[in-house]
């Protein structure tokens, strides 16, 4: 029985809607499932670290206000694969796509 869907977790705290939408579009374009959860703490390192470790695929994104970070299961907390403060739309797409590419074992954009 499958308990969890094999999806990328996106943990957010007081996120910007457009930012979140672009990030999700990045993931969708790569054809990977994702789930978004609203959290009540705002530390970006914890958000992305937890998302990566609780995702079955080991890839997670944390969004805290205007900052976004991509983390991978197994990488120490606070060390991001990719990080942006106030990202552009393209950067949001890119970080979304990269979170999927980690799972697909493809070169990052």
């Amino acid at each position: 029985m499958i308990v969890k869907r094999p999806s990328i977790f996106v943990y957010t705290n007081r996120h910007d809607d457009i930012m979140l939408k672009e990030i999700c579009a990045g993931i969708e374009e790569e054809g990977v499932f994702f789930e978004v959860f609203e959290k009540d703490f705002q530390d970006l390192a914890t958000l992305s670290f937890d998302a990566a470790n609780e995702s079955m695929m080991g890839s997670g994104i944390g969004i805290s206000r205007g900052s976004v970070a991509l983390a991978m299961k197994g990488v120490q907390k606070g060390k991001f694969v990719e990080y942006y403060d106030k990202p552009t739309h393209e950067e949001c797409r890119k970080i979304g796509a990269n979170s999927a590419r980690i799972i697909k074992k493809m070169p990052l954009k």
Partner: protein
Amino acid sequence: MRLIAGVDIGNSTTEVCIGEIDNLGNVTFPASASCPTTGTKGTVVNVHGIKSALKEAMAKIGKDVSDISLIRLNEAAPVIGDTAMETLTETVITDSSMIGHNPSTPAGAGQAVGKLIGFQNLGSARQNEPYILVVPARYSYEDIASVVNRINGMINIEGIILQADEAVLVYNRLDKKIPVIDEVKQIDKVPDGEIAAIEVALEGQGVRMLSNPYGIATLLNLDAEQTRKVTPIAKSLVGKRSAVVIKTPAGNVKENVLPAGEIYLSGEKDISVNLDEGAEKIMKTVADAGKINDITGQSGTNVGNMFERIKTGMSDLGTVEKSDIHITDILAVDTLAPVKISGALAGETCLEKAVGVAAMVKTHHLPMEKIAESLRQDLGTDVVVAGVEAIMAGLGAVTTPGTKLPLAILDMGGGSTDAAIINENGEISMVHQAGAGELVSMLIQTELGLEDRHMAEQIKRYPLAKVESLFHMRLENGQMTFVEDSIDPRFYGRVVLLSENGLIRMEKDIPMEKIVQVRRDAKRKVFVTNAFRALKTVAPDGNLKNVSNVVLVGGSAEDFEIPEMLLEEFANYRIVCGRGNIRGCEGPRNAVATGLVLSYVGEMK
């Protein structure tokens, strides 16, 4: 006690060996160094490279260059090598345009045919006519999907070409599922109003219809003659995940086929051979011609242009006049070169048969005396030009543990492969041949379609690995290595080169296996062919069985796989062959420089 220095100026590196001679005439070697050669070998600018190599070597023993009492330069072999490449079939001409590419995420498998229509021109679309929609990146995926869904049933959209990387996003929002191709960068070059066929391959497959000439004919209603002309397009689309072929009105492209041409060899025998015949036949002809005075190509042909380029390149170096340049040896190698397809909208290429040629030019006596004079003035030290390069290399090579005379040396450098055999009496026979490390780099560059030569040099030099996660990579021999600290994400999922200064990223997306194969083939084609050719020339009675020991020296002998390749091949002739180890510690480098010091000791006695 005296310090003397042997200096060897090569095509690509300058080697220095410092010898310390005590009062009894015993010699020790406290230091050595190597630096890139400055300028063309045999010109006065070499002095800079020599000085920095001397400085480096002397610094190792805490002394100054002025402590050297004598510098001995080699009498460099007066040969310079160059490489060129020419395809056998010139420009592919078609009257269709095409885009064939490998976007990572196209969507909706299948093929579609229709008239190309820009997103902004949808208003002028007519009913009952199939269309392929062309959308620049400025429109969002939501707008595109909602417009297509709204006009569904009124206007017949059969497929979509996108500029942005949004195929899946659009496809997921469509009511009627149609093939969507994305990442077409130069979308403005897609002509409005022409008929086009698009195809997206099934999961895990390449395109089927558009990589088949009859498939294109079926979709675009071509006759037999037109189908013949689209064959190169079909060929270049093989293996692609998605493709677009656009039918453009015929007659605006003229066919201009340049013949491959004849190579004329003037030597003991004057013979010619057509480039079409391939590398093997050309090399046989070169062997048949005996000692060669000059090689030219038929004018107005590919090969004519190629030899012209080599000679012009040589005369540009300024050491010789163009009329004095005679090509005395060539090494021809079969290869594949990417040829630009006319009509390709995004600069697509297809691989065509080609011949790569390394040529060797005998120049006049190189002005070594001038270099010696310049060095003498700069340093205030005694400088002499001593000894023929091959003999010095031989003297140096004998210091390899486990060797004895008679001995064959294969000096594999950047520009040329030289062979020499020294018998028990110290008599020597030698040959200089075209084709070495630089030709290998050129073959790697063209076959992999790399932009710059530097990357090809790196591929030649270092083994490959694929970064499979942030913590491990798989090496080309199948081994895995794990790293303590995570690998930089820039390398994630990519093929990398393992250099001594860390990882080097391959920008182009080429499978590791393909790179390994191209690299090994290039080395084999150049060095194995040349090693046999050279040794047959110098071997007693021209018989390889009369050679017992071969020592490999020179820069290319340091390669991580060439010596093994040669060992395997020579083992069939019961020849002991291996990478030299000069003085038991230098590896294959420094043979000539060491020989220069040793010959001085010999002269004293």
